[in-house]
């Protein structure tokens, strides 16, 4: 009697993913080195901020990646909840991107408050954007806690998907509530810089490079973390086949 157990997750094809993440890995390493070189050595200090302007090469990029990561998590959760596109891989992607998002969110908050200490003389201000980022951090830490609760993997995945969606819905709500409240932030020269007149030449080039480098770095980390998540699921999954065999042996 054949007893078929659907593997709860198809494991990622080795060749494509491995090659991609290897390339990304090398690219992000090279990018980081170039960014450090450009940011710390080549680009001149600004008049007003002095050397701390160099933080502009990391902080905004990290902050943007945070929102991208949480966005990926929300989209993956939505895909998992939608019956037609439901597959455990979306759940793995959501879990991976949430964890990476929390990492970058922590980096944003730390580097932001260090920079705030210099420019505003205070570690923390109840500014709209800072509050929103901190809110997101706390909410997604709760999400990660929910991911580790045990039980039926399908149930866990659904719980996490709904929480992730709710957490991401927090972004617009918080954005309005805190911005009505007050805002000290410099506006978008810090967060999303288009062609900003405030900085040009090397500084601008380095800044744009920073977005690219951190995007590549994010993609690489996410891919690796996604692989780990899938492998963990597969391990758990393979356990079922053995468990079923043992269970039946119990009966004889």
């Amino acid at each position: 009697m054949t007893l078929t157990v659907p593997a709860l997750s198809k494991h990622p094809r080795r060749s494509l993913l491995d090659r991609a993440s290897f390339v990304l890995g090398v690219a992000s390493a090279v990018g980081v080195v170039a960014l450090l070189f450009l940011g710390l050595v080549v680009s001149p200090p600004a008049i007003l901020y002095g050397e701390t302007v160099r933080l502009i090469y990391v902080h905004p990029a990290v902050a943007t990646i945070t929102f991208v990561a949480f966005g990926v998590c929300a989209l993956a959760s939505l895909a998992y909840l939608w019956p037609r596109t439901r597959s455990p891989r979306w759940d793995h992607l959501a879990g991976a991107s949430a964890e990476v998002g929390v990492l970058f969110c922590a980096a944003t908050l730390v580097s932001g408050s260090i920079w705030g200490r210099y420019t505003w003389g205070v570690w923390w201000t109840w500014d709209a954007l800072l509050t929103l980022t901190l809110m997101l951090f706390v909410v997604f830490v709760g999400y990660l806690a929910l991911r580790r609760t045990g039980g039926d993997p399908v149930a866990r995945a659904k719980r996490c998907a709904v929480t992730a969606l709710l957490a991401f819905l927090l972004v617009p709500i918080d954005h309005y509530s805190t911005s009505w409240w007050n805002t000290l932030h410099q506006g978008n020269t810090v967060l999303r810089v288009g062609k900003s007149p405030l900085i040009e030449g090397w500084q601008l080039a380095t800044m744009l490079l920073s977005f690219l480098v951190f995007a590549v770095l994010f993609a690489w980390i996410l891919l690796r973390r996604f692989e780990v998540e899938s492998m963990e699921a597969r391990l758990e999954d393979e356990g079922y086949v053995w468990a079923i065999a043992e269970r039946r042996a119990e009966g004889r």
Partner: protein
Amino acid sequence: MSSPVTAGWGYVAGGYGAIGALVAGYVVSVLRRRRSLTRRLRPTPAEPALDHRPSTATVEEVP
């Protein structure tokens, strides 16, 4: 107050250091977890590692 130019480096070091430490620490932990998982998932030699296994694992494969 030391001149803004020199004072700045302290903060720059702090900012870069913080982000670097967080990201690097996390990357190391992920890679270590990945290596240990690949080892634990090493299937029996008869079966090539990480091949395209059929979407359903049938009991037959269990000795």
